[in-house]
């Protein structure tokens, strides 16, 4: 028995050819003469061999592009794939670089600014990307000198520019109350706190979700946070569903699109708004290059139908087409067929 134990421990070394010749020979001799260890050895070999079934994946070209841009910004990069903003986001970039926050001047406002000022431009010295936050009412204004916390109720929901926010984090210091928080760096560190249903909070989260150009925060983390918070029926908000629909349509990263469609599945049907979610799901089912996204789009459509929504003829036609499309991925076809059975027996 002790000998078998020693042999067993040697088997991974045998697989990796890490045994010295003498021990290798001894181990082989033992295995040949011991039925139990032969069985053990065959199981190790089978396991080792099965591991080759995990295919090697290619590195997306954008990684090299980003790496070279970071370390050799002066180099001409005609041989790497450039990253282009998708058309759907152009409106954001083209919008006026003005962010209106009632009562909050993050960038250049002053705590002692005259009260009663209305829509006064304050960001003449800011970079275009930084956006600007303008006082719009008699509410107190805030300077940018230090870290501060702003109540969501006190800021306007209208983000009209494209402020360059970074280091976004999500906070729920007390899960028992309804308050959540989003903190971020702009030119100072800012935390906005409030209820998930506060329009400013919704708009801020929407902005984070749709702001695909920044490396941080991880958009997947943002989507996780949104899923946790807005899948609760009393927090449902069509704007969050719209933001996720936009991510599903436009994000270049398939992992993020998978997260987005997964989260759309969990949102209450009442949050699906004016049908934009349906459209995005149908578009994803028709056109997304990733079969996992297409499968999850089917699941999301089924969930909506189960929640009482009536699927349009276009949706049913798309499902029928997918179920019978010869060159479609097998799993997507099966999913579509099952969905038809469930929603349209």
């Amino acid at each position: 028995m002790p000998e078998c134990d020693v042999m067993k421990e040697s088997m991974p070394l045998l697989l990796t050819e890490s045994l010295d010749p003498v021990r290798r020979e001894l181990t082989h001799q033992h295995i040949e003469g011991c039925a139990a260890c032969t069985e053990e050895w065959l199981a190790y070999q089978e396991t080792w061999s099965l591991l080759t079934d995990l295919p090697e994946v290619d590195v997306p070209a954008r990684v090299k592009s980003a790496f070279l841009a970071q370390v050799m910004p002066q180099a001409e990069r005609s041989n790497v794939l450039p990253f282009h903003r998708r058309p759907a986001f152009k409106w954001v970039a083209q919008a006026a670089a003005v962010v209106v926050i009632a009562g909050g001047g993050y960038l250049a406002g002053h705590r002692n600014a005259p009260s009663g000022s209305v829509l006064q431009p304050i960001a003449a010295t800011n970079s275009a990307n930084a956006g600007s936050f303008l006082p719009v009412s008699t509410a107190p204004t805030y300077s940018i000198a230090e870290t501060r916390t702003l109540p969501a109720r006190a800021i306007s929901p209208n983000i009209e520019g494209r402020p360059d926010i970074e280091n976004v984090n999500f906070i729920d210091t007390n899960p028992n109350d309804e308050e959540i928080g989003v903190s971020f760096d702009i030119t100072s560190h800012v935390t906005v706190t409030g209820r998930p249903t506060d329009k400013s909070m919704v708009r801020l989260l929407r902005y984070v979700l749709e702001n695909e150009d920044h490396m941080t925060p991880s958009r997947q983390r943002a989507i996780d946070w949104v899923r946790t918070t807005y899948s609760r029926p009393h927090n449902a908000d069509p704007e969050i569903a719209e933001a996720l629909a936009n991510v599903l349509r436009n994000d270049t990263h398939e992992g993020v699109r998978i997260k987005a469609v997964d989260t759309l599945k969990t949102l209450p049907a009442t949050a699906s708004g004016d049908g934009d979610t349906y459209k995005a799901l149908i578009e994803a089912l028709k056109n997304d290059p990733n079969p996992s996204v297409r499968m999850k789009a089917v699941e999301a459509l089924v969930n909506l139908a189960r929640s009482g929504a009536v699927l349009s003829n276009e949706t049913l036609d798309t499902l029928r087409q997918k179920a019978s499309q010869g060159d479609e991925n097998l799993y997507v076809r099966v999913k579509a067929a099952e969905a038809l059975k469930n929603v349209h027996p």
Partner: protein
Amino acid sequence: MTTSDLRDQREMKHLSDQELMKIVQAGDFSPASEIYDRYSTRIYNFAFRFLRNSEAAEDATQEVFVKMLKHASQFNGDAKLSTWLFSITANWCRDYLRKADNKPKEGEDVLLHLPGSGEYSPERQLEQRENEQRIQKALAALTPDQREAILLSRYQGLSYAEIAQISGCSEGAVKTRVFRAMETMKKALTGESRGGNQCLNAMS
């Protein structure tokens, strides 16, 4: 890119890792692209399998090569460049997992890399898919140390001595990690009925 740049890039393909790193250590980053081409796939695949998150694997790949250039002076020409790069990658991945909200999530990204529909028959695709899922699940069940050891050993073909250098532990510890990982994966992939229990029964 100028003609001389292209010529330089072609010539770099003939240089060894050590020679390329000497150029970098002298403050010239022109070998960056060549070094990236040599190792990015291995680095990305290691990070992707370790973290089960393709977005994080992309970040890891980019940052590993940036760190390689930034800390080139720390590279000792006696060691293999691959070992050094995997050390940086493993550190990055461990740091990533240490953050509470970055734990690998069940099933994340598992369907990202299915072969094209026309590449295999549906039956073969199904079989391949099932195998991939089982392996992913078995890998996810390992401790990070065990996963790191098995990925570097099985998929990167590194020796135990190299893995010990990367993981900052003894060779003996690496052997134990690989053994434990194989035990767990054997049970997960071939079932309890194969091996272990029978061996013990036969011996008692």
